């Protein structure tokens, strides 16, 4: 580590601790570093890297998936997915737990937003579970963690972000690669719920009368789930690119919300578009800034330095992966997923790739890891929203969260040390 690398690191950390927007932390630290390197017009380079970093066709999928997610979320999908999950698993003892998790997985996947899944599904399921005698805190913990699994199941914006910073990673392979890990973690969460769930003894399962008929459940939920089929099918079948698929998803979500479900009015569109643009711009501004930083990082050979440091601890790739996992878990407790992926992919990916790891595998690992961070204090976006929706406090939710964290961690270890779990499906499909 020489002076410039030190400036980059210290500048970034100081700005970060003072609650400067992370994109500006990245950009500001980069400006200082490039200035210290000298010989280059600093402002010019940063401005150019930021704007050309955003100007990429694959990144266009982000605003579109955000928009289709908002449209689907507001278009009455939540209620219909709950009915569908209720039909599938609502009859078991403690069935509401499984209804909750499965609905969150589907909603999170289609809307592409864990936060939206917590507020939409939690808004309905938490009071419902509480009414049936499950602990309020347990319900909040379950919803919060279940919602993050949707980020692994396609379509997923964070995967597009990863694909772009990792460069030359196929979005299609990531999308497909996330399916099985997402389902595995969801199943482990359900297993933890089954183990720790007071309902095995105390709570009656749902009455048959509350469960929808097969026909009603299917008719309601299938159009929502069809979005995943259209996107994945379209990309895998070579009909359109991931970006085009996301635009088609917007058209489909509009059609569904306005014509089929009739829960979105044309007058709502202004608000929905504005909300989507704002969410998009937060992500894009971060991406632009990190593209500038990655220039400085590679100029300063930071990945090589990190690699040397990690190899100094152990040259066993299994140990390296464990260390990276632990570092990411710590980062995840206080940083959101998008900036964490943007900052740490360029640093860690070269390290693991040099020991032969597939970038698709690492991407899924990283996202699964940071999903846990979305539910941990002190900063956990999903956890905060869950507590808000459920009307409870952070401190009370920690206890019921613990067994679920263990389940998620086991899932993470499975993903880390069993590459086939992630890579089998994309390879089967020749991606």
């Amino acid at each position, binding site marked *: 580590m020489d002076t410039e690398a030190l400036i980059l690191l210290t500048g970034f950390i100081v700005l*970060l*601790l*003072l*609650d*400067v*927007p*992370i*994109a*500006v932390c990245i*950009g*500001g630290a980069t400006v200082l570093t490039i200035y210290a390197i000298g010989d280059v*017009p*600093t*402002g*010019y*380079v*940063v*401005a*150019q890297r*930021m*704007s050309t970093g*955003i*100007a*990429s*066709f694959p990144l*266009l999928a982000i*605003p*579109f998936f955000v928009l289709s997610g908002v449209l689907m979320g507001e278009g009455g999908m939540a209620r219909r997915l709950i009915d569908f999950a209720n039909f599938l698993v609502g009859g078991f003892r403690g069935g509401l737990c499984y209804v909750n998790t499965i609905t969150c997985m589907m909603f999170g996947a289609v809307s592409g937003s864990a*936060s939206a899944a917590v507020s939409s599904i939690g808004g309905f399921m938490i009071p419902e579970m509480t009414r049936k005698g499950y602990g309020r805190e347990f319900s909040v913990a379950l919803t919060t963690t279940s919602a993050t699994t949707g980020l692994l199941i396609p379509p997923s914006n*964070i995967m597009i972000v990863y694909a772009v910073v990792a460069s030359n990673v196929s979005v299609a392979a990531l999308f497909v690669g996330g399916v099985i890990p997402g389902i595995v973690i969801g199943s482990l969460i359900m297993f933890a719920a089954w183990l720790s769930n007071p309902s095995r003894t105390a709570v009656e399962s749902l009455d048959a009368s509350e469960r929808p008929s097969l026909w009603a459940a299917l008719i309601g939920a299938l159009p929502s789930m069809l979005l995943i089929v259209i996107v994945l099918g379209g990309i895998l079948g070579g009909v*359109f690119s991931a*970006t*085009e698929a996301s*635009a*088609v998803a*917007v*058209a489909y979500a509009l059609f569904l919300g306005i014509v089929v479900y009739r829960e979105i009015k044309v007058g709502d569109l202004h608000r929905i*578009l*504005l909300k*989507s*643009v*704002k*969410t*998009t*711009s*937060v*992500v*894009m*501004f*971060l991406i*632009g800034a990190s593209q500038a930083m990655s220039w400085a990082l590679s100029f300063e050979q930071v990945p090589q330095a990190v690699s040397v440091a990690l190899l100094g601890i152990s040259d066993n790739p299994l140990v390296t992966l464990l260390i990276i996992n632990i570092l990411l878990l710590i980062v995840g407790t*206080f*940083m*959101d*997923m*998008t*900036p964490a992926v943007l900052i740490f992919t360029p640093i860690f990916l070269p390290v693991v790739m040099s020991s032969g790891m597939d970038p698709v595998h690492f991407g899924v690992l990283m996202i699964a890891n940071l999903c846990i961070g*979305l539910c941990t204090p002190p*900063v956990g*976006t999903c956890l905060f929203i869950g507590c808000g929706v459920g009307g409870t406090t952070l401190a009370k939710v920690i206890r019921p969260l613990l067994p679920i964290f263990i389940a998620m961690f086991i899932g993470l270890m499975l993903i880390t040390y069993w590459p086939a779990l992630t890579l089998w499906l994309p390879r089967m499909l020749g991606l």
Partner: protein
Amino acid sequence: MAHAQSIFTRCVLRLVKGLEVLLVVGMAVLVVDVLWGVFSRYVLGEQTRWTEELAVYLLVWISLMGAALTFREKGHLGVDYFVGKLEPSARRLSAIFVEVIVFAFSAFALVHGGWNLVIKTFASGQVLPALNLPMGYVYSVVPISGVVFCLFAFEHLMAYLSVDFDLKTSPQSAEKESD
């Protein structure tokens, strides 16, 4: 002073309204544009040449202008945990520091650096191949959004520095959501 302030506030509000309309229209055009690309390829048999180009550069525009607007609403992601532990007076100081940093970054990198970028690109005569427009127009969003960033940082600063400022009531954090 009070008069000048109210004129400033009115101008900012008008700018915000204008930005919102611009962004909503931009986003709508983006969707239609990419869909048109797919449509032209499958139905008309030949993909329209300019759709991808327009979409990519429109994305740069709405991203940076949207980022400026979102900054006004405190919608960007930050690590507010440590600052939250501070005394109110120290918190106010750190909030002022944040605005100064954002102002400095925007002025130096976005306005100054972006301006150089625009000038050099126009001078190089680089042209967007399909749209046949000078590339400099694309980059001009960098200094423009930089000015807007500075303006909003200034607006925040004025609020923090005013005598009867109360950290509890203002400014409201927007709902932060990116995942």
